[in-house]
């Protein structure tokens, strides 16, 4: 089996588990929508403010959702000692990494779609130019999923995992938050062309952390 096939195998497994347990659907997505709602409580739905800060609120909510998705991705391995089986399966760790990260990315994409609709409706946002928006979101999602999966395996098995991963992950993905928000701002209210440099930055981040993940996942899995 080549790398892509192995990744597809692992991603398929994770997504099948998700399809049966419906955690993303029933918990993470509602969580994200509640956060959007809370932002409205916190910021006073004077339509002006929410509309202006909508991109930022959207991406912060996505990041918070990502913390849950990553936590879930490794919780399923911890159950029933599956991570030992994963280690001994003979699968290339890089493939396992790609698979798990891909599954997280898919879940995030679903979350983002729902939240985007939420943002358009709740915060009265109109989308000017969808191209840069979608590409920025894609790159950002891959970057966050890769980095999250990396920290997920790093902290797997540790009792403090649940509080550790958020504080490790968020500073590292701060450029993603920055770039994605700026790209969305450009696509929504500004000059859409301004978004492209940020798409570039997000892509570099994604490529970088996918690579780091492929290299580091194996060694980290050994310690899990």
């Amino acid at each position, binding site marked *: 089996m080549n790398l892509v096939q192995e990744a597809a195998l692992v991603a398929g497994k994770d997504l099948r588990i998700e399809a049966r347990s419906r955690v993303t659907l029933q918990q993470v997505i509602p969580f994200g929508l509640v956060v959007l709602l809370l932002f409205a409580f916190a910021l006073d739905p004077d339509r002006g403010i929410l509309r202006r800060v909508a991109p930022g609120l959207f991406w912060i909510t996505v990041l918070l959702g990502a913390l849950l998705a990553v936590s879930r991705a490794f919780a399923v391995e911890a159950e029933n000692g599956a991570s030992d089986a994963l280690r001994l399966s003979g699968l290339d760790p890089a493939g396992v990494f790609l698979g798990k990260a891909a599954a997280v990315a898919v879940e995030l994409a679903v979350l983002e779609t729902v939240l985007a609709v939420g943002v358009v409706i709740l915060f009265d946002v109109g989308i000017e130019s969808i191209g840069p928006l979608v590409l920025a979101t894609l790159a950002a999602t891959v970057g966050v999923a890769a980095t999250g999966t990396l920290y997920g395996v790093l902290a797997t098995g540790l009792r*403090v995992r649940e509080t*550790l991963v958020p504080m490790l992950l968020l*500073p590292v993905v701060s450029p993603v938050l920055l770039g994605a928000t700026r790209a969305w701002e450009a696509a929504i209210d500004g000059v859409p062309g301004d978004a492209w*440099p940020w798409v570039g*930055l997000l892509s570099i981040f994604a490529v970088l*952390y996918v690579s780091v993940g492929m290299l580091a996942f194996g060694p*980290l899995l050994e*310690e899990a």
Partner: protein
Amino acid sequence: MTLLKPAISRALGWATLVAVVVLALFGLWGAPPDSVQGDAQRLMYLHVPAAWIAYLAFGVTAISSALWLWPRTRSEVYDRVAGASAELGVIFTGLTLVLGSLWGRPVWGVWWAWDARLVTTAVLLFLYLGYLALRSVPASPDARAKRCAIAALIAFVDVPIVHFSVTWWRTLHQQATVFNPELKANIHGVMAFTLWFGVLAFTLLYVYLLDRRYRLAVLEDDLDERELERAIAERVAGAGTSVRASPGDDADKVPAEVTP
């Protein structure tokens, strides 16, 4: 047992003390007050060197981590240096931010400015804190070293991205901020000397403290290992089995988490 020979370490300690005193003399008295900022500028002689060492310490942590990860150069020395440097790095980074606040307030009237450098330094602080949090999780020395080394490198490759993205973001949004921690245009003569001397003094301080912190790490790691061996021996003896525990046998096989 230490990074430097004891005699050198002692000499370095004294040299650091002298350098710091000289810096204080120049910084607080010898150098003239700034034409624009007045005396408040004297904080720059601490803030800038602190920032310099904050990033230097981070680099040392990253390089040490890489050296540990590379099988041919793997040694517990590098792991301990990485940890010690990170602890120092947190202190220098925190100090950089606080001194920046203390400097900014009288000069620009604000405790904080969303200036690219300050923001990047703030992110650096959190990267450090994350590393130290990871390091404090109980684990076998090898597991801890591996996790921390990889975490350090993940953070290290992030810093340029953070710096670049934040710098770009803030230059695009160059609003009313006149906050310019550099003001290099005004630095010359005694002021320039004091600034560079500050960098020197802080570097000496960093190296000296690194050596001391390293020694502490060696001592405490040794103590932990001996505690562990003793606990294992007691457990085995207490179980009343005839199996003898020999130190070094079980030390590698402890579970990833050990409660002391």
